[in-house]
């Protein structure tokens, strides 16, 4: 599969934009903005998949499903949940400035890792070629940003957003790692994020009702 130079450069800039927007979604202190940034990230991801689809038409279905589930439904779920929440998140465990440094180091490390050890990481021959190789690096970075968000944000709402990022990263990597998947499987995989986010938000709503806050530091009932 050969991609033209324009598509390659477009992919590169979109991938960079996706990392930046994921970072923004994790670190934005205003919850509404965080949700918006997440929406942008989902949109960028959809377009990345569409760009890949120019050479592999089955991926169009994938991008369409991702557009509906990740962009429309999840964003709607997040935005409708945000009503009645305080405007700003609970203070994060690691603030903005160190986060920038950590994430930059992380992205570079993962880029190096995927380009050096791609044979070990990716079992398909396709993934060893560009631009799929970079795609693996980007999806891993998005994935680890999601994990980073879950680990360092105290606000449960941010946990939900970080979980979405985690899923996005995993799904994006499938473009490179499992390009031959059937449509039904793809739809299934992509749709499961809706369910996960819905359930997570449901739990957070309950948490807000019982504890009165979405601060996960208050969830220490198990401690003895």
């Amino acid at each position, binding site marked *: 599969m050969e991609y033209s130079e324009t598509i390659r450069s477009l992919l590169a800039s979109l991938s960079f934009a996706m990392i930046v927007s994921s970072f923004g979604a994790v670190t934005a202190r205003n919850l509404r903005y965080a949700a918006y940034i997440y929406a942008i990230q989902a949109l960028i991801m959809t377009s990345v998949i569409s760009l890949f689809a120019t050479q592999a038409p089955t991926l169009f279905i994938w991008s369409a499903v991702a557009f509906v589930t990740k962009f429309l439904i999840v964003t709607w779920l997040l935005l409708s949940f945000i009503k009645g929440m305080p405007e700003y998140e609970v203070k994060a*465990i690691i603030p903005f400035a160190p986060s920038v440094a950590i994430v930059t180091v992380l992205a570079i490390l993962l880029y190096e890792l995927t380009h050096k050890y791609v044979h070990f990481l990716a079992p398909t021959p396709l993934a060893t070629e560009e631009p799929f190789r970079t795609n693996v690096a980007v999806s891993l970075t998005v994935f680890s940003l999601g*994990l980073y968000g*879950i*680990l*360092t944000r105290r606000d449960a709402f941010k*946990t939900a957003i970080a979980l979405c990022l985690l899923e996005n990263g995993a799904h994006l990597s499938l473009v490179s790692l499992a390009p031959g998947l059937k449509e039904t499987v793809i739809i299934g995989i992509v749709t499961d994020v809706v369910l996960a986010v819905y359930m997570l938000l449901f739990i957070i709503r309950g948490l807000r009702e019982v504890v009165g806050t979405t601060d*996960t*530091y208050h*969830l*220490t*009932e*198990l*401690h*003895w």
Partner: protein
Amino acid sequence: MTGAELLLCGLSILFIGAVITALLGRWTILNGWLAFLFVFIGNLLALLASLSFLIGEQSATYGLGEMLLPSIFYVDRLGALFILVISSISILSSLYSIRYIEHYQKNTALYYPFFLLFISGMIGVVCVKNMFAFLIFWEFMTLTSYLLVIYESERAENLLAGFRYFFWSHISAGCIMIATAFLFMQTNSFDFFVFREAMPKIAEKHPLILHSVLALFLIGFGIKAGMFPFGNFWLPDAHPAAPSPVSALLSGVMIKMGVYGVLRFFLWMLPPSAELGIWGTIIAIFGVLSLTFGTLSALEQEDTKRLLAFSSIGQMGYILLGIGVGLALLHKDTPLSYLAIFAGLLHLMNHAVFKALLFFTAGSILYREGTRDLGRMGRLIHSMPYTFLAVIMGALAIGGLPPFSGFVSKWLLICSATLSARMHYEFPIWAMAALFASGLSIAYTLKFIGAAFLGGGKKEQENDVPLTMQIPQLVLAVFCLLMGVFAVYPLQIIHLSLKDSIANLPSYNQLLGEGLSITPQLRGLAVAIWNPMLVLLSLAILSAIFYEFIRGAKKEAEVWVGGTLPPQRVLKYAPPSFFQTLRRSIWSNIPSLPLPRVERIGRLSASPGEDVYEPFIELGRRFINGLRRAHSGLLQTYILWQMLGLAIALTLIFGLK
């Protein structure tokens, strides 16, 4: 139905019973009767099965459905003998439990289910042929009995006793497991028969491995059997702590599982050889140590059940001595070796009967008087006449007085040990020690009877224990007499049970003669004789004469000192003063030898300093505290743990590749 089917039915009835009794814990008496019903039916089936194995069928292998467990169960005649003992004592013990357990006023859902599972675990141990299944049942038996030992968990000392039991049982299980691992490495199988076939080859190629395996087995089973100096760490604590029916089962039956292990892994598995002879000598020495230590320590005790527990160690010594002497002589092809094993096994059966009986009576006293302290009881002869009768029978049996059961086994043991002097010059010395300890066992039962039942003073109202508690006592008491007079029948059962284990066992008549009297034969000559009818007749004549002699000579009078009636407690011989002279002379003579003071060893083993257990408790506490600290309650830390775990798992998987 074949024996195997009967046995499986019996076991399943016990399991069903465990579930049902767990649901009805609040209705104490009803639950007791239900449990008795299940135990009775289940064990009756097992009893029939064991008889059918002993008399008719060849050994049977059977599985729980071919798919699930392809024939791990296996019953041969040796196992059948043990099923016989387990089942008969279990039935009586569950009958005894019904009213006894009432006085704890606790939920019986913590008692009966484990009681039933404990019995099925013991039966399971003796009817498998796969080491893996054996260990599972072994642990099953240990854990359920542990829960029974700590039934009265409100008392701290019971928990400590339970902990000791748990600790030593697991050292025992650990030894057996290591030995199993060695055997598995040699044979690549867990099957007893494969072990048995491989034994001569292992003995030839790797004698060191064989002997370490045997040493581990001996220690492992010895701990369970209460063998000094291994079993005495848990036994004297755990037996008094358990409810009395359970003590009866522990002492009467469970510690015999250790003997079963010794028989299975030494007698059955190894071909007769000089090496086996050496192990037999070692077992015999441990037997002598146990019987000396157990009996001497029992003299010291002032707690009824603790006294009986030490006496169990002593009596296990006789059993081990018999088996040890038998194993030592096995390769010399002499009838004496069979006689010694017969004596050991007969004593095993007798001990099951009289020790269960004595624990029942100690339980009855506890039930009525609420104490185990010999110093705080007395004159119970008036209020508990039937229990007194039972105790007397049990004491005569344990003391080895004719015509009671203990006599026959001890006599047979001492006969075979003495007559083997030409082959093993030390065995007659062991026989003398056994004879001496036998005398001392009369002494400690006398202490028990004297302190608990006798003493002057006014008569009290009869207030014996309920009928369901009296029946087991009286049944066992009658058996104490019957098994002495009609000792031929148990001996014939033992003869049958050894057919699978000893290749060329002579017929019963060749070994022990014909008829009701027992005449051990050596090269066609009767070397000794026990004729119960003759003894009964002479006893009857003697007692008639004696009665005639003392009739009219007996006078009853008030005791008075210096013109006043002394208080009643003075009229009783206080327990600490029993056999003071004897004890003093024994203990004061031993330290003069350049040996560690036996008295101190006795005390140490009776209650080893808590420093033995303290490190383990502390280790556990630290571990739990560490776990607690890991529970921060924060979502993030849990996810971090998961990620760490994943990272470690991935590194392990890919790193090993």
